[in-house]
């Protein structure tokens, strides 16, 4: 039985075709995966189903009737619910208020709170309706979104990258809920690029590439590698890790504590670790457990006690970012546009952000334009950045290309210690592999590398030592060998000793 059928949907943004002649069906009571790289058109497609954008050409049928929603409310009325990748939640409002906002005719607050308790008991999604969303963990926030959807009795539940922020245990719990919903007759459209998950969860998968449907497969009968190659359209090579002996300690962090100024941020508590020459240390953890604060403290954007951070022989806790860079500590923050790079400025100008002093791209306050352009050219060539010229604005680059540029800008400055937060977030598979390889080569050359990431597979692939940040505390670093997914999951959940 078909629940929703999409016929020849096409959507253009200006001259760019986001969706080109998309046709596929989701059956009743099935979990259907939508697979594709970033920019393959998955988001646009689900936005059309959810009524956020309207197709230029093509029609949709829901339950055998014509379906052309003009806004999300029209979709919700017809039984479509969506859990967003970046949660559409309001931090300063309570759980019940957040849920009420997503409903058409919410009951009175007390009745709604009771309904929330009922649903959360039924599906094992524990949640207190009166808490502020800002104080919830990421996993709990997702429960808010899911309960909001479930209270509407949806026929089709759309989930956009639901597991990217969850611990392995939370993922298991989510899958149990989803299977139960499927057995009750709800269809689920599941968007993800985590192929192993799709193999265990989904009945069928539709694969998109460059806005077109490339094929439909049954994930159980495929391997993760074969599906990845369908997504990318070419063979993939994985980075090669060579075993190295570590050299002298480069960065010593001891009892680093920092109070967060963000009301919903996480304060750092007694962070202690050492990075040696040639070592890649991976920091795992669910988002919002102090990663941002750790990054700010290490980069020098927020100062700490002088002796809590030591770079080689110098205490640098009270040293600003410029001086830290000159001493050889380089960083690449998570947010590419706006933090690592200035969106409106061109690539040549963007080299000045971190390279002005260390690369001597200027003198007496004047900018050496030729030098900056030459450095940008070098980055573009060495890191295979696809762009028209060094004069292109940073925001005109795709996520993967800009990330390669940012990585190149720091790595080519020959850091002693390189700290990076989410190096491959939202980056396509080929660029991600390239960036990981570059990080490994940097360590091979004798630098110390700290990688903060929420992608466990990535950390398993490139780290030598491994640690988990949870509620602002860092677990004791341990060699990556012998670390299992289960251990990591427990550490991410906040267990102290394993």
């Amino acid at each position: 039985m078909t629940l929703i059928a999409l016929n020849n949907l096409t959507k253009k943004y200006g001259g760019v075709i986001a969706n080109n002649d998309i046709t596929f069906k989701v059956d009743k009571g099935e979990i259907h995966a939508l697979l594709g790289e970033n920019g393959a058109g998955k988001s646009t497609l689900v936005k059309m189903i959810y009524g956020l954008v309207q197709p230029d050409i093509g029609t949709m049928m829901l339950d055998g009737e014509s379906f052309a929603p003009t806004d999300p409310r029209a979709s919700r009325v017809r039984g479509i619910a969506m859990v967003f990748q970046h949660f559409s939640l309001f931090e300063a409002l309570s759980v019940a208020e957040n849920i009420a906002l997503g409903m058409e005719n919410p009951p009175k607050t007390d009745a709604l709170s009771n309904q929330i308790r009922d649903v959360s008991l039924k599906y094992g999604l524990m949640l207190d309706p009166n808490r502020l969303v800002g104080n919830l963990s990421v996993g709990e926030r997702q429960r808010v979104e899911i309960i909001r959807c479930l209270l509407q009795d949806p026929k089709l539940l759309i989930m956009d990258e639901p597991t990217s922020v969850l611990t392995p245990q939370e993922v298991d719990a989510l899958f149990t809920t989803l299977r139960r919903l499927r057995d009750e007759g709800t269809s689920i459209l599941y968007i993800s690029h985590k192929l192993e998950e799709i193999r265990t969860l989904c009945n069928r998968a539709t694969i998109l590439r460059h806005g077109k449907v490339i094929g439909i497969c049954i994930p159980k009968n495929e391997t993760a590698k074969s599906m990845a190659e369908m997504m990318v359209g070419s063979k993939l090579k994985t980075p090669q890790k060579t075993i190295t002996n570590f050299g002298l300690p480069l960065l010593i962090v001891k009892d680093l504590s920092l109070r967060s100024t963000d009301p919903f941020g996480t304060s750092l508590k007694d962070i202690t670790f050492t990075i040696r020459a040639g070592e890649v240390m991976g920091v795992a953890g669910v988002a919002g457990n102090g990663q941002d604060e750790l990054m700010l403290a290490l980069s020098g954007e927020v100062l700490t006690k002088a002796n809590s951070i030591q770079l080689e022989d110098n205490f640098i806790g009270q040293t600003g970012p410029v001086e830290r860079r000159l001493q050889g500590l380089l960083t690449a923050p998570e947010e590419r546009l706006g933090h690592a790079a200035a969106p409106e400025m061109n690539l040549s100008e963007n080299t000045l952000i971190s390279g002005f002093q260390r690369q001597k791209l200027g003198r007496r306050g004047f900018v050496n334009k030729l030098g900056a352009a030459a450095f940008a050219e070098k980055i573009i060539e060495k890191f295979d950045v696809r762009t028209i010229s060094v004069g292109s604005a940073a925001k005109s680059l795709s996520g993967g290309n800009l990330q390669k540029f940012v990585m190149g800008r720091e790595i080519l400055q020959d850091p002693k210690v390189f700290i990076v937060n989410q190096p491959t977030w939202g980056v396509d598979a080929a660029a991600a592999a390239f960036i990981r390889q570059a990080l490994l080569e940097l360590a091979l050359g004798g630098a110390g590398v700290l990688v903060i990431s929420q992608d466990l597979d990535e950390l398993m692939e490139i780290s030598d030592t491994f640690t988990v940040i949870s509620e602002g505390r860092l677990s004791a670093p341990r060699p990556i060998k012998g670390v299992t997914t289960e251990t990591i999951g427990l550490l991410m959940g906040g267990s102290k000793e394993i």
Partner: protein
Amino acid sequence: MDISIVSLLATLIVAATPILLAATGELIVEKSGVLNLGVEGMMIIGAICGFIAAVNTDSPLIGFIVAALAGAALSLLFAVLTQYLLANQVASGLALTLFGLGLSALLGHRYSGIRPPSSPKMEWFGMAELPVVGPIFFNHDMMVYFSIFLVLMVWVFLKFTRGGLVLRAVGENHDAAHALGYKVIRIRILAIMFGGACAGMGGAYLSLVRVPQWTEGMTAGAGWIALAIVVFASWKPWRLILGAYLFGGVTILQLNLQANGFDMPVSYLSMAPYLVTIVVLVIMSSDRTRASLNAPASLGKIFHASS
């Protein structure tokens, strides 16, 4: 020195009312995520338009209604600039203030020196005759009670109604509100116009009751104080009353001290209310974590639907 506490308290309430009205409007505007720095301009436009209407119709009530309409009309200019043309809110707000000051001077040059019709006191069944309580609480004109009633209504609206919840949601995270299908721009325009109407009435209260006559630039920074009081109140309606009456109190106290020949240069005394505001703001914002907890998270950010 001869200062009567009772008359001090009674006049304090009158001095605070224009600011309270304007601040209540601005609270709603800021709760929707818009920072309108044009309060001063909207107040003075309200002051002159209300004054002209009241003088020509001989009715203070019509004066206040016209003032509200004029303030809302001027704020609509700001709304179009910032919500449709995506202009910077700070610059547009400042421009609105300058424009309002200039336009009001132009409109009002034939109206200085005229007395407006007087606003009658509310009748509270003779309770105005009560000692102490009477003159303080029961001997005012209608707008004083209206301003407090308005704070009550805003509190009820924000706390208990669905409309208030949607408004807070838009101010908290406009992208999420848009994703849920709420009309961010329409909600914000309505909020801005409500703010303009309140500021207009506040201005008219100055020219029709508090002073009462028209002089150029007569708002004298009251709009800025109203903006400061919204921050002082941490965006909570009831605290607006506290902030406005505190400011009104200092204003009246310094006037009384001046009148009694208190031995201090006049400029220091007239400075006092503004100094107090600055000091209170500094204290309020000293704890950054707590200050940002109450502020609407999308305040002053430009919304552009990307999908």
